[in-house]
């Protein structure tokens, strides 16, 4: 089957989750990846949405982090202060997904502004849960499309710390921290190391042993598309 770059990203992120993973998911690709994991190899994976739903098991892909189905299918629904205090800060979450407008070579992220903070060129929505997700979960997974505008030498604003970023999946490949710097470790089928270099705004470190990501299997794609169709009914 053919597939899109988004599908490759979702599949590759999903593969990193297991039935023992407790993960904090935002809407969009992370939610797609986590729900896909539950439908394929990781049925026990626990999904936590920052709206307060713990162990949500949506049948449809949620369109917002506060969809009613998340509350209906959750093991527990807690208040937002409790979610951030007892669950996130409490150290209960294994994996947190983050996206951003910009990332630097250390995995620091910007989701706040393009340009100067006081007189921004583009005012972005802001960090939301990101600053504390980035420092409270055990592992941060970043999902972000590759471009020189996104993978920058110097962030316009550092919204969250990169210290716990373990894995960046893009539409071209995968970066992982090696000796404190994000390093290309895999390219997706159809991409080359040079493609990734060209789409990265800093001089990209490349691992000696770059491998090619396994393409999404038919089963993965079928599960993914079923989720997406349901969510858009």
């Amino acid at each position, binding site marked *: 089957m053919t597939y899109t770059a988004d599908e490759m990203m979702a599949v590759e992120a999903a593969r990193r989750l297991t039935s023992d993973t407790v993960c904090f998911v935002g809407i969009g690709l992370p939610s797609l990846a986590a729900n896909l994991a539950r439908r394929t190899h990781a049925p026990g994976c626990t999904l936590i949405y920052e709206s307060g739903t713990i162990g949500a098991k949506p049948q449809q892909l949620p369109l917002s982090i506060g969809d*009613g189905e998340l509350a209906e299918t959750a093991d527990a*629904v807690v208040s937002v202060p409790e979610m951030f205090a007892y669950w996130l800060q409490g150290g209960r979450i294994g994996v947190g997904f983050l996206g951003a407008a910009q990332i630097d070579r250390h995995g620091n992220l910007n989701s706040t502004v393009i340009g100067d903070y006081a007189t921004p060129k583009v005012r972005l929505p802001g960090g939301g849960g990101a600053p504390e997700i980035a420092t409270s979960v055990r592992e941060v997974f970043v999902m972000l499309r590759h471009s020189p505008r996104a993978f920058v030498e110097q962030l316009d604003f550092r919204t969250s710390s990169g210290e716990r970023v373990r894995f960046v999946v893009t539409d071209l490949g995968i970066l992982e921290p090696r000796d404190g710097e994000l390093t290309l470790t895999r390219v997706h089928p159809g991409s080359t190391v040079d493609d990734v270099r060209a789409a990265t705004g800093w001089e990209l470190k490349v691992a000696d042993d770059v491998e090619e990501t396994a393409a999404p299997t038919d089963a993965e794609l079928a599960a993914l598309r079923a989720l997406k169709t349901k969510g858009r009914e």
Partner: protein
Amino acid sequence: MAEIVSLTEGIRELVTDGDTVALEGFTHLIPHAAGHEIIRQGLRDLTLVRMTPDLVYDQLIGMGCARKLVFSWGGNPGVGSLHRLRDAVEHGWPAPLELEEHSHAGMAVAYAAGASNLPFGVLRGYLGSDLAARTRVRRIECPFTGEELAAVPAHRPDVGIVHAQRADRQGNVQLWGITGVQKEVVLASARSLVTVEEIVDELEPKAGAMTIPHWTIDAVACVPGGARPSYAHGYYDRDNAFYVEWEQISRDRDTFTAWMREHVLEEVPV
């Protein structure tokens, strides 16, 4: 002791120009109708507080009600930017908008501190983030371990406004589903207004429901559909299409203004 009022009365009695107002809701039960009534009453210079300002805050800002926004994530969930918020911040239209920007964790702690009558809340937060230098957060030392943590000032809005599923005739309010920071906002605020889908004789117990006692609320207004286009669990679903439409309506100042005139200013209040 909660008074049962019309929405018009509730806003008129509780909200004044210059007030700090929190209309809260985390995706669910967003008090849109109350926000529209604030716009219709032409309130000005408000400091608006909310973790996740979305469409109704975009409308309040675009209609010139706000002087300042205290927030942690201001976007159109699943769609993109809030264009009126951006226009105010980027171009000062219709008026400049001061920002006090937090993380969700910081906002949640600030509300909980307010509800607890504490002047500040403590969290492991704002670490490695440039936000710390741009907002009201200070470092505080644990007096036992010496560890440094973040302190945020408590939120104590003048007025807290939330929407809930139902109230009884005394004004006890019941809400369920995603309950967000609704209880904290009511308790942290000096005055509070709750709009509800219906007023019933008796609040039956319900799994996952919380009750906010009438003696912590100033006014309750029955406003069926008052959370639309967001949703009220058990009553109606989220109008996802409208969130997508808002992207187009809000991009252009004139389109926005025309839409607001037709759908909000000329709407018959409840």
